[in-house]
């Protein structure tokens, strides 16, 4: 008891000294309401609230003894505070987790209920859910499947007679043609998500070893080795040749999206999750996905990047685990998942989902027919090492020499190695 008091006051103390903690919406929302049991569904997808409200209404109709309340936090805040809320147990009977550092930290804190034996696990594509496993136990079930690689204007490419490049040489030729037509090849939102998204496809073939970041963290690899220095050199080339817009580090994702929607730029260096927003801004766009192949065609291993994310899980501290599992079971039904996929414009990891929108249908081939790799960034489990990796990209785009940027980042890696 005394120990817990110290723990609680320690948290408050840190908050006081920092004096800067953001407020949070939602709160204790897991309770018995009337005859029905109320569970809390904690996640970060505010943009999906309306669709999920519909799905929840249908779920409650089919399960009149369960009520579901959504507790939504912005993704930045979610990454920082979800663990604290799960610890207490009253929020997030069902919750979602990011893969990578957050999954690792929640797993090591013991907040995941083991879902291995649940029947609904078989509703998911087996090849896409391994990211929610640890030591053979299924702790979380990724729901969404996103492709973290540039979205490109297919209509523009067709008009200019451009083919999807299969090598780094072809990529540069394609970019030169776009520049000759006064089109910026890549809109890069360097002020926010650009570096952490684009690094994945830029490095996927420079370092085909999927263990490369695990090795970096345990000291077997270094950012000063060829795979990362070459990635930084490739970034430098994009900046030097004007393949990404001027002042890219000051451009946020809204501005970058506007560039692509207005057809000032041909590619958006983020991911498939922005296709719907781009079509909202300009419904005439014809979009597809394109990852830069930074090696010669014969050396290329991967064609793109995937991330199975929005991982559904049950809080081990919850007192309503059965109700929480019933809700996940419901979300994993193909007709429910299809509704969610089509209304949010997302590909899902659930089997037998029927994609209705043109954009989803046109890009579904990336799920089965293309060799994509799980997002490497999520395999960096130490947040400070991840920051060092991303900072080296910003450093190079700010004018630093790639090797010097790699050395500076490697120093931080060494300081933070566990």
């Amino acid at each position, binding site marked *: 008891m005394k120990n817990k008091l110290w723990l609680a*006051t320690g948290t408050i103390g*840190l908050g006081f*000294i920092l004096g800067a903690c953001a407020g949070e919406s939602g709160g204790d929302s897991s309770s018995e309401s009337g005859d029905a049991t109320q569970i809390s569904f904690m996640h970060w997808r505010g943009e999906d609230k309306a669709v999920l409200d519909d799905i929840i209404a249908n779920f409650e109709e089919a399960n009149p003894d369960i009520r579901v309340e959504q507790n939504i936090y912005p993704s930045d805040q979610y*990454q920082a505070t979800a663990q604290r809320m799960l610890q207490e147990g009253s929020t997030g009977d069902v919750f979602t987790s990011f893969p990578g550092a957050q999954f690792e930290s929640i797993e090591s804190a013991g907040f995941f209920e083991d879902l291995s034996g649940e029947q609904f696990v078989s509703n998911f594509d087996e090849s896409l859910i391994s990211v929610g496993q640890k030591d053979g136990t299924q702790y979380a079930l990724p729901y969404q499947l996103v492709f973290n690689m540039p979205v490109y204007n297919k209509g523009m490419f067709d008009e200019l007679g451009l083919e999807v490049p299969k090598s780094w040489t072809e990529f540069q030729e394609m970019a030169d043609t776009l520049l000759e037509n006064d089109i910026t090849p890549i809109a890069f939102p360097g*002020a926010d998500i650009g570096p952490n998204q684009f690094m994945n496809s830029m490095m996927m073939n420079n370092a085909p070893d999927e263990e490369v970041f695990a090795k970096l963290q345990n000291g077997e690899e270094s950012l000063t080795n060829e795979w990362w220095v070459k990635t930084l050199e490739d970034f430098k080339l994009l900046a030097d040749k004007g393949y990404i817009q001027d002042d*890219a580090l000051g*451009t946020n994702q809204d501005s970058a999206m*506007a560039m692509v929607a207005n057809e000032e730029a041909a590619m958006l260096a983020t991911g498939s999750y922005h296709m719907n927003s781009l079509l909202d801004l300009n419904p005439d766009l014809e979009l597809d996905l394109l990852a830069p192949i930074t090696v010669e065609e014969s050396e290329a291993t991967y064609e793109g990047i995937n991330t199975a994310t929005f991982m559904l899980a049950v809080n081990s501290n919850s007192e309503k685990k059965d109700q929480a599992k019933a809700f996940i079971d419901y979300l994993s039904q193909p007709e429910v998942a299809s509704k969610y996929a089509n209304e949010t414009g997302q590909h899902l990891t659930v089997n037998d989902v029927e994609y209705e929108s043109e954009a989803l249908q046109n890009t579904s081939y990336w799920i089965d027919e293309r060799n994509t790799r799980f997002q490497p960034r999520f395999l960096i489990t130490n947040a400070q090492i991840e920051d060092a990796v991303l900072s080296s990209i*910003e450093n190079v785009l*700010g004018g630093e020499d790639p090797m010097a940027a790699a050395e500076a980042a490697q120093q931080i890696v060494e300081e933070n190695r566990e």
Partner: protein
Amino acid sequence: MRISKSIYLFFLPGLVLYSLLFLYPTISALFYSFTDWDGLSTAFQFVGIDNYTRAFTGDSIFQKTIGNNLKFMLTVVVFQTLVALAFALIVIKNTKTNVFLRALYFFPTILSSVSVAFIWAFIYDPSMGILNQVLQLIGLDFLAQNWLGNANIAIFSLAITQIWFHAGQMLIIFVAGLQAIPEELYEVAKIEGASKWQAFRSVTWPLLAPSATIVVAYTTIQSFKAFDLVFAMTGGGPNNSTEIIATYIYDVAFKSYQFGYASSISVIFMVIIALITYLQFKALRSDRVSY
């Protein structure tokens, strides 16, 4: 007059709240600064002064944040104080126009910091932002910058936003201080042939020192704690060039789950603020006079 002992009961609620909500948590943070607590589990180990050693000798980002914080603080303290004082001298008289202008200058202070961050992020946008467009329109396009994307100037761009945000608040303190200076002293100075600058140096500034102490101390603390503005505008980037101690504590505690280490940085942070505030207080106190 004999004071009843029961009067001490009136101190009790405040004392209890202060102890519970500040003193005890602060002591616990100090306690955790000697541990490797991850913020989640109930188990932790004592690591002695390892966290402090790491902060000063093995964490280049933390050392960079101190530098960033000093740059930010010095820019804000100097320019915010000067701007607030200059504007206060302009609007000191209680005319209708001046009352309106004071309200206008104070207005940014009532905005939420996140709104301010969004407004200024838009102003600073290199391609669509108003600032670069205005500079181009008036023929000063050579001054157009990547305000938040250039690691060499991003911290100063944030400082300008901070000054815009809080100068109005300091102006009010200066106006109150200026209005408290007796008019007769200026009359005496005038009779003795003092110029406006001499009157300012020998009358205004010394008698304004208590207000200036408050302004400088408060601005220093504010600029060290400018977490929300930095977090919303740059997130500490590019390349950690705008990472300040407060945002770094947040990253270490809530992204890396190293609460023990974050607690030690918090303690160092608290000592730095206390030390700088004390030195400022001493320096400005020596300027004080009374007539």
